[in-house]
């Protein structure tokens, strides 16, 4: 049939052939549709769960929300650290067509330094292009206004408000409050180790110093989160659900900002430290170290110029109240007197003759009294009131370093006071063991003599001196110093730091009275070293002056302030408390290189106490009431 080609077309054969081919074609199509369907069935039914998950992963993002940091108040409810909105100029790079050109024209409206531009360009290399990046932080009102009217010219540029820490009292509280600043890599690693990194996912700043650092876990709060639906460019379309962040605890300090300001004004431009304690519970009423600096500089990243300025010889970065190591000098004479009485080295009525110097038998060296001609007949009262050195050279020599060292350790010397900031040093309470470890030398008998008047190897911080005085005026009761009294979370109030340390117990409790009376006389009696400063006070104060030598004066020479370089002049020290019979406050003052404790230290104590008792009238006790 195929060989014989028909001249006339066989239409029915053609139709049959075509119909068969069309049928084969349709079967073929059905087979291919079956392949498509089986593949779609696999995707849509078998693997549905997997693709459902991936679809949700695509669109649902969990965005952390930073908690608001807890606020800090003083004891009277004055706000000391707050969160203030700051306005930053931010840019979403993907929305800007020509970044270089836009940066140029924006900087014609708002001043943006080349450094800021370079930092910004560097930042955006490391982040997603739809994420907002800070171009300039902390715009002032004028800049906000200037940009706002021109905003339409800069798509992708916007002004964003964020909360940033602000310290309204600036340099008045720096050494107590500390500050927060940008969280760095090292801190992030530490948070990771503590399993806290998730909690900080949205947080920019962390406490770097002072209370802000010490109470970081309480102040920070708990991170919240928001489940949002995003589109393919990561832009948020809507919020699906939200777990609100828990704000950090608010802290109420024992500090009195008024008293703190008095302390700052009293020191003016003198280097020094002031600690005022609440005698009833060890709460710190004032803690000021001069010179100070503005903590707000650090919150937004301090410029290198500003930072260099802080590295000057006056060392404002040092917290002198807890890190300054000063010879406690005569302020520890009351403690030394108590030890001598406890050890029966002297009795209340024992007197000795002070020729103006002390000598170890058969040794030529003379330890001089501050009064070159001596104090004559001296008993324990007069020794404290007039701050007789010879008396204490003698008792110290007779007691020996070990007894002194052990006793003073019970008043907190040589160890951290436990105040709730991390910036603290133990200073040095000398002992035989200490000297051997430190200098690989034996303790000489002569080393003990100057320890008797709080000099020699002995150093202490102003907070230690205040604490030791506080223990004494409370007759052994030991309330360690602390800055924070209460943490507040919504309505829940937690008392903090109200624990006591084991008290100092004496064999003869009456010895407390002797030391306290003597410190009272120091102010009350006209011969007392602090008498002049407290003339006319409405309350009944007690205290002890101290003048600490910074350089040793060679044998036979006299201390001559004018001849010495400023940094080598004596430190003025004062400890005081009031009222003497029922102490409410204890002050400890160190002023560097200004000479006598009675002429410089005591007047500052007077200012502090005047302010305190004006604001807190003495609670009348039974015997004073009419």
């Amino acid at each position, binding site marked *: 049939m195929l060989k014989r*080609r*028909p001249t006339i*077309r*066989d239409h029915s054969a*053609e*139709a049959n*052939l*075509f*119909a068969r*081919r*069309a049928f084969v*074609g*349709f079967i073929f*199509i*059905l087979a*291919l*549709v079956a*392949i*498509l*369907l089986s*593949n*779609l*069935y696999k*995707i*849509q*039914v078998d*693997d*549905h769960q*997997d*693709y*459902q998950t*991936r*679809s*949700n992963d*695509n*669109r649902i993002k969990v965005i952390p929300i930073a908690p608001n940091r807890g606020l800090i108040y003083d004891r009277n409810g004055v706000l000391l650290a707050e969160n203030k909105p700051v306005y930053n100029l931010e840019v979403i790079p993907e929305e800007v067509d020509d970044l270089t050109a836009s940066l140029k024209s924006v900087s014609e409206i708002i001043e943006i330094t080349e450094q800021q531009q370079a930092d910004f360009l560097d930042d955006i290399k490391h982040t997603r292009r739809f994420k907002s990046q800070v171009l300039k932080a902390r715009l002032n009102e004028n800049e906000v206004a200037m940009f706002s009217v021109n905003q339409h010219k800069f798509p992708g540029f916007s002004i964003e408000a964020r909360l940033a820490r602000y310290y309204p009292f600036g340099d008045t509280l720096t050494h107590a409050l500390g500050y927060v600043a940008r969280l760095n890599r090292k801190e992030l690693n530490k948070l990771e180790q503590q399993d806290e990194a998730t909690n900080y996912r949205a947080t920019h700043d962390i406490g770097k110093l002072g209370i802000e650092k010490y109470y970081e876990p309480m102040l920070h709060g708990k991170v919240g989160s928001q489940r949002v*639906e*995003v*589109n*393919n*460019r990561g832009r948020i*379309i809507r919020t699906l659900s939200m777990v609100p962040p828990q704000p950090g605890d608010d802290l109420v300090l024992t500090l009195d900002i008024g008293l703190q300001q008095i302390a700052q004004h009293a020191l003016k431009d003198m280097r020094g430290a002031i600690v005022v304690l609440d005698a009833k519970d060890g709460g710190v009423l004032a803690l000021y170290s001069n010179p100070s600096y503005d903590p707000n500089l650090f919150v937004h990243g301090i410029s290198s110029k500003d930072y260099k300025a802080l590295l000057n010889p006056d060392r404002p970065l040092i917290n002198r109240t807890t890190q300054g190591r000063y010879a406690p000098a005569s302020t520890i004479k009351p403690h030394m007197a108590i030890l001598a009485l406890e050890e029966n080295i002297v009795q209340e009525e024992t007197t000795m003759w002070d020729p103006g110097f002390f000598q170890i038998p058969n040794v030529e060296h003379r330890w001089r009294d501050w009064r070159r001609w001596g104090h004559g007949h001296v008993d324990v009262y007069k020794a404290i009131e007039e701050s007789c050195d010879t008396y204490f050279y003698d008792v110290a020599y007779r007691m020996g370093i070990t007894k002194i060292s052990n006793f003073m350790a019970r008043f907190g010397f040589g160890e951290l006071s436990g105040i709730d900031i991390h910036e603290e040093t133990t200073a040095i309470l000398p002992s035989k063991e200490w000297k051997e470890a430190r200098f690989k030398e034996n303790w000489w008998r002569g080393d003990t003599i100057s320890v008797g008047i709080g000099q020699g190897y002995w150093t202490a911080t102003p907070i230690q001196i205040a604490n030791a005085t506080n223990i004494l005026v409370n007759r052994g009761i030991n309330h360690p110093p602390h800055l924070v009294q209460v943490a507040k979370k919504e309505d829940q109030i937690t008392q903090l730091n109200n624990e006591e340390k084991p008290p100092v117990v004496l064999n003869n409790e009456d010895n407390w009275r002797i030391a306290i009376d003597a410190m009272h006389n120091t102010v009350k009696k006209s011969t007392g070293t602090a008498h002049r400063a407290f003339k006319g006070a409405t309350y009944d104060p007690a205290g002890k002056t101290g003048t600490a030598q910074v350089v040793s004066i060679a044998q036979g020479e006299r201390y001559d302030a004018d001849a010495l370089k400023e940094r080598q002049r004596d430190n003025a020290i004062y400890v005081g408390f009031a009222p003497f019979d029922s102490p409410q406050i204890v002050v400890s003052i160190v002023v560097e290189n200004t000479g006598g404790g009675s002429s410089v230290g005591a007047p500052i104590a007077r200012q502090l106490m005047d302010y305190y008792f004006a604001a807190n009238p003495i609670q009348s006790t039974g015997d004073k009431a009419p």
Partner: protein
Amino acid sequence: MTALHDKRSIWLRLHIDLPLLIALLLMMAGSITIVYSASGQDSAMVIRHVTRMAGAIIGMFVLAQIPPATLKRLVIPMYCFGLLMLVGVLLFGVSSKGAQRWLDLGITRFQPSELMKLAVPMMVAWYIGRNQLPPRPLHLIIGFAVVMLPTLLIKEQPDLGTSILIASSGVFVLFLSGLSWRLIGFLSSVVALAAWPFWHYGMHDYQKQRVLTFLDPESDPLGSGYHIIQSKIAIGSGGIEGKGWLQGTQSQLEFLPERHTDFIFSVLSEEFGLFGVCVLLSLYLFIIGRGLYIAVNAQDAFGKLLAGSLTLTFFVYIFVNIGMVSGLLPVVGVPLPLISYGGTSMVTLMAAFGIIMSIATDKRMLLK
């Protein structure tokens, strides 16, 4: 009986095949629904889409009025004009997205490859249909040359999708004309052997990349694999019932690329699930079945071959597009016929259906 006959005769006189028209209109209604969702509820876009549809329907209606005999006379001029234009495109064409497909005629842009989608099967059907079926080897060779010339010109633009569609439309004519199975087997082996040199010398880098990505889309999730992955996520997450109209997160949140054009099937799968897919495929199969029915009942060989080829080519669109978005085939730019947004393919497809209707109603006119 007569009443029924009279009723049908209205459509016959209008040269409309009613079952096919109804299926096409249902398809378009579906298209409007999905394009509205895929465009992100962009009414302006939907209005443009509907306008083009209206134009395409008119075009179909006009072509349906042209009897096959007239078409036969237009075959050679159409084909030659088309070839000339393709050469013109390669020489003076307008570039868009890295390919030269358009010819700027001043008033409008014209895509000659669309014309060839109709001209090639018409030319081959006319040439093969002139002689007794099955065709003799010489006719086959010439027929094959008629197909390959425009195919290669279009592949040079480059437009792989269209060249595949045009090549298959011509090859389908040869297949339907009774090309012997032995020859089909032999040619298939030659094609398989030729694939190797084609891979090395015949394909552009972006086409090779598509094939490689297709073989393992997860290897490049942010690059060229992204489209396939997002498409499969859209289809898979739709499940059996779908997420609901306008509720497809992959499409509404723009994770899915080319949502309203090449990847519109993924939008449909995501929002209407496997259920919607089955409805769509059933409708497609009905259209194909109807097309083949018309072809089988056509008056002459030209009509049979042309209607059959156009119908089978219609399926190539479907298979390549769905195969592509569901990860069975490499990414080749072929729209989902009658559903995807885009005027050109819609007009060409409806024109093809116009020709099919002309063939369908031609015989009945004679019978009358």
